[in-house]
């Protein structure tokens, strides 16, 4: 028995460790992804006033605070039992689209592009964002410009790029000014041009990754995501839908308060990250995925012209339910295009400048559930309060959690295919990390950062003897 540890995995948001077990012949027998620290937001928010929850839970993450804000304010809307003004809903979605653009740009250009553009087996000393800047400066500039656009849009809308306090229970706390609208509109064409170029580039090279596509989490799972009443892609609102690996609808139009009938959570002895599963099928058969790939798999269309054309081509290439986790990259780019088109449409709506943007109410229900699509997938905030509005109980199911079981299976599949325990090469291990990157896990949502990123792989013999060692 030998064990390989990749600790921590690099170029992801947050920190994780991978353990790969080998038998005496050097073949992989098991592999696991470990999230090793606990945040505790569900527990220490108990007793806080419900209206503080958006500000508190936004601090879970510096990358996707807007998602936590939106899931949280939606849960608070439910506790207040209010229907927020139409303009408030439009503005929340607009803000959310800005976040999708910046987050997807971060994942594709900063975290995964070194693998995709420099090669999985390239020199690990240069396979990073600096290597990308040296060899593909224009793509690196595009990545920075796209992320900047998303961040800038968030700041123009909400006043701050990180942890803005603009979204509040009942709506948003200030209307959109015509100046801010025009500034975002002026920058949109350049951002769209970047995504179009990147999509064209990626579609030209994706076939070079045939072995990765075949073995990067190419596993049968369910998929979950929000859709509108006609099955169209939804990021801010909508109802939950599950589709299976053959493309069949398993459950549809699930309202937020019903989520617990379909999603149950278990814990893994090797990780602090909870492991949700599709309740009717149980843990073993109920593995499902969320995020860009899952959203495109569950939706019938995107709902914007250019993204719909890309959506059709994507499914023509890979089927109704594209199964490989490698396709998260492709799906992420399509969603970035959708988010930009959606921003354009929202800003063209005359109602976007309306001054009525907030409903006021106290506690009218003792329980509230808010669901939004975070860039990485379905995000659920569920609160129970007392008569005074103090939190009695909170449950947060983050996107990375939904993908926990699937990521573990993906890590195992990649390990089994690529790892040869008798001849350890860095490129093999990089692929194990790369499949995790494809999911773009946001471990900050479930862990605290600890130390500087580093990879230290140790190959141990059955008696614990150190046989081989790699440090990156």
């Amino acid at each position, binding site marked *: 028995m030998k064990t390989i540890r990749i600790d921590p995995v690099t170029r992801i948001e947050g920190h994780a460790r991978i353990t790969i077990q080998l038998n005496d012949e050097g073949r992989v027998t098991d592999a696991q992804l470990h999230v090793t620290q606990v945040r505790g937001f569900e527990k220490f928010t108990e007793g806080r006033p419900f209206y503080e929850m958006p500000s508190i839970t936004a601090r879970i993450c510096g990358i996707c605070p807007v998602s936590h804000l939106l899931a949280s304010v939606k849960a608070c809307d439910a506790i207040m039992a209010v229907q927020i003004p139409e303009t408030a809903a439009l503005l929340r979605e607009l803000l959310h689209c800005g976040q999708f653009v910046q987050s997807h740009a971060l994942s594709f250009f900063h975290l995964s592009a070194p693998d995709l553009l420099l090669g999985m087996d390239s020199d690990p000393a240069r396979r990073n964002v600096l*290597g990308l*800047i040296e060899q593909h400066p224009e793509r690196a*500039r595009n990545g*920075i410009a796209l992320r*900047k656009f998303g961040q800038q849009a968030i700041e123009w809308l909400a006043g701050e*790029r990180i942890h803005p306090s603009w979204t509040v229970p009942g709506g948003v706390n200030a209307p959109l000014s015509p100046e801010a609208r025009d500034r975002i509109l002026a920058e949109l064409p350049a951002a769209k041009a970047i995504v179009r170029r990147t999509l064209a580039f990626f579609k030209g090279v994706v076939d070079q990754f045939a072995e990765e596509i075949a073995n990067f989490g190419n596993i049968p799972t369910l998929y979950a995501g929000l859709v509108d009443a006609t099955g169209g892609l939804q990021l801010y609102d909508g109802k939950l839908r599950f589709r299976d690996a053959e493309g069949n609808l398993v459950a549809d139009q699930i309202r937020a308060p019903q989520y617990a009938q379909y999603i149950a959570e278990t814990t893994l002895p090797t990780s602090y990250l909870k492991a949700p599963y599709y309740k009717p099928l149980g843990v073993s058969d109920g593995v499902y995925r969320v995020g860009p790939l899952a959203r495109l798999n569950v939706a019938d269309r995107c709902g914007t012209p250019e993204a719909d054309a890309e959506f059709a081509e994507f499914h023509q290439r890979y089927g109704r339910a594209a199964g490989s986790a490698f396709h998260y990259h492709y799906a992420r780019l399509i969603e970035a295009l959708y988010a930009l088109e959606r921003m354009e449409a929202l800003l063209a709506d005359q109602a976007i400048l309306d001054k009525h943007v907030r409903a006021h109410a106290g506690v009218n229900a003792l329980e509230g559930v808010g669901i939004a699509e975070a860039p990485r997938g379905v995000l659920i905030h569920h609160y129970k309060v007392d008569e005074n509005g103090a939190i009695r109980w909170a449950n947060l199911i983050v996107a990375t959690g939904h993908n926990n079981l699937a990521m573990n299976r993906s890590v195992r599949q990649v390990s089994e295919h690529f790892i040869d325990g008798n001849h350890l090469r860095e490129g093999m291990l990089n692929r194990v990390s790369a499949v995790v990157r494809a999911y773009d896990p946001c471990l900050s949502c479930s862990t605290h*950062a600890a130390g500087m*990123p580093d990879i230290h792989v140790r190959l141990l013999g059955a008696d614990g003897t150190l046989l081989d060692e790699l440090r990156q």
Partner: protein
Amino acid sequence: MNTLVIGYGNSLRGDDGAGPFVARQLGAGAIACHQLTPELAETISQAPQVVFVDAHAGVHAGQIAVLSVEPRASAATHRFDPGTLLAWSQLLYGRAPAAILIGIGGKSFALGEGLSPAAKRGAREALRAIRKMTGQ
């Protein structure tokens, strides 16, 4: 103003908010932010010179230190510092402006908003230095 001022830090950790406090006092043209991020590389590449302002645990509380900043390339994206930003500016946009870092000595970095009296003195000192430097 020909000088771009970037004040950064966490305003929810007491004196760590000294950097953004200074930037906000300067108003339009200065950037107050939670942390340094890659997209600032493009912005600083267009500035004649840059003054970074940050709380500094190694400086006596209430005082400031003016430190030189040189481009220093790093592949780590979890934590950006002024030198890394300058290097990215040079590599991506062909120009790294002259830059300094004004470190403001802080006393308390515990959870909570607002600067300690000592950090406020340091922030005022930093403002005087920046205004003198920029002729304001």
